[in-house]
Every structure is written in C-alpha cells, then in structure tokens.
C-alpha cells in the first residue's frame, strides 16, 4: 500500500520528457549539420580545386577536429544534453566519444588511462562496422560479384 502510494507520488513529480520536442530538435540539428556538410564540400572543392570525394574527406576531418576541440574545451557535453541525437548520429558523436573517454581516464596515466580507454565507446562502432562490412562484403562477393 505504501509502495503504491509512493510510486504514484514519484510519477507525478518525474520530469516530463517531451518526446515530440526532442524529436523536432534532433531533426533540425541533424539537418543543419547536413546542410553545413554539403556547403563545406562545395566550398573546399571550389576553393582548392579538388574533386568532390577529396573535398568530402576534408569535410569529415574538419567536423572531427571541431567536435574534438569542443569536447576538450568542455562545452560539447552540454550541447549533447540539449540536442541529443542530432549531435550523436553525425560523425561528431564518434569524435566526441573518443575525446571524452580519453579525457575521463587521463588521470590514470598515458598507457593505462588514455591508451587503454580511448576506444572504450568508439570501439563498438568500429567492431560492428568491420564485422558487418566483412559479412555483407562476403555475401556481395559470392552472389553478385564486386562492382
């Protein structure tokens, strides 16, 4: 009886997560990042007179640099709390996870701290990316032949 009452009071005071608002914010943030990405590709390919694929590689490096720098300066975490998946799904989330795990374990030393923990969060992306790419690549190689 007491537990039920407690749960009812607790559920009344729980912070109301507005799912629709979160979704709209994630959509707009991701959209703006995609827009900047396309703009940077055009800008680099015009500015340095290189091909589109080279320009897109430079664009990815730019995004990784900015995300790592902001994480190291300490305010990317606040941005992630506010914009959530809008910043985690683009490549900025990958750089953010690597830099934040390196910063978190820095006090344990260069080898045991940074060296062993830098891939703590990003490792799952690389592991499952490689395994699935190998698996689907085998399927494509044996069924359709390589393109």
């Amino acid at each position: 009886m007491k537990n039920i009452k407690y749960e009812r009071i607790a559920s009344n005071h729980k912070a109301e997560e507005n799912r629709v608002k979160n979704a709209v914010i994630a959509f707009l943030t991701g959209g703006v990042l995609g827009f900047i990405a396309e703009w940077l590709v055009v800008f680099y390919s015009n500015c340095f007179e290189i091909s589109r694929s080279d320009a897109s590689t430079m664009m990815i490096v730019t995004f990784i640099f900015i995300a790592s720098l902001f994480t190291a300066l300490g305010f990317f975490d606040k941005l992630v709390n506010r914009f959530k998946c809008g910043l985690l799904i683009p490549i900025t989330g990958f750089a953010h996870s690597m830099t934040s795990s390196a910063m978190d374990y820095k006090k344990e030393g260069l080898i045991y701290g940074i060296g062993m923990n830098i891939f703590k969060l990003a490792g799952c992306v690389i592991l499952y990316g490689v395994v699935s790419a190998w698996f689907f690549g085998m399927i494509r190689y044996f069924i359709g032949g390589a393109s």
Partner: protein
Amino acid sequence: MLYFNSFLFCGFLCLIAQLILDNSKLTPGHITSLFVVIGAFLDTFSIYDFIIKKVGGGALIPITSFGHSLIHGALAKTNSMGFIGIFMGMFDLTATGITAAIIFSFIFALIFKPRN
C-alpha cells in the same frame, strides 16, 4: 537542391535515432552500432551509393556512411585482389576519419585539463 536534400536526409536519420532513444531502453552506443550496420547493409547492393549521388554531403556526415565506406573500400579492392581484397581494402576509405579522430583526441586530451 543538394542542400535541401542534405538537410532532409541527415535530419531524418537523427529523427529516427531520437525516436528509438526515447521510446526504448537502447543507449546511444546501441543506436550508433545499429546505424553502422544499416549503412553497411544498404551498400551491399549499392543503395547507399545512389543515396550519396542524390543527397551529396548530407549523406556522408551521419555514422551510416562509416559502414558504407568500410564495405565500399573492401569491395573496390576485390576487383584487383580477389577474395583477400575484402581484408586488404577494409580501411581504405575510412582511414582518414579514424586517424584524424585518434590524433586529435590524443593531442587535445594531452593539452586540455578535464573539467570536474
């Protein structure tokens, strides 16, 4: 038109991720892993190449493009090397992104002091 498509596509992926995050118990780690696998799957029959042609830079920035470039480099290498090319070409296209992430995060972790 590419700008508009980039906005829509990248925003749409983030929207799906946010909906999964809010309505299930999966963590962001689960979702990014899932999106990488989806990217690799879409490129198995060159669907993702078609999307990149239509969308442009907006399709290269989400984490799905990481899975796409892994399998794309592997399949490109099979043309010259045969079966073993899947192993040789796996990191051909993603090498820049991974190297940049490692170098920048190491340097910034050395320079800056962690907050709290």
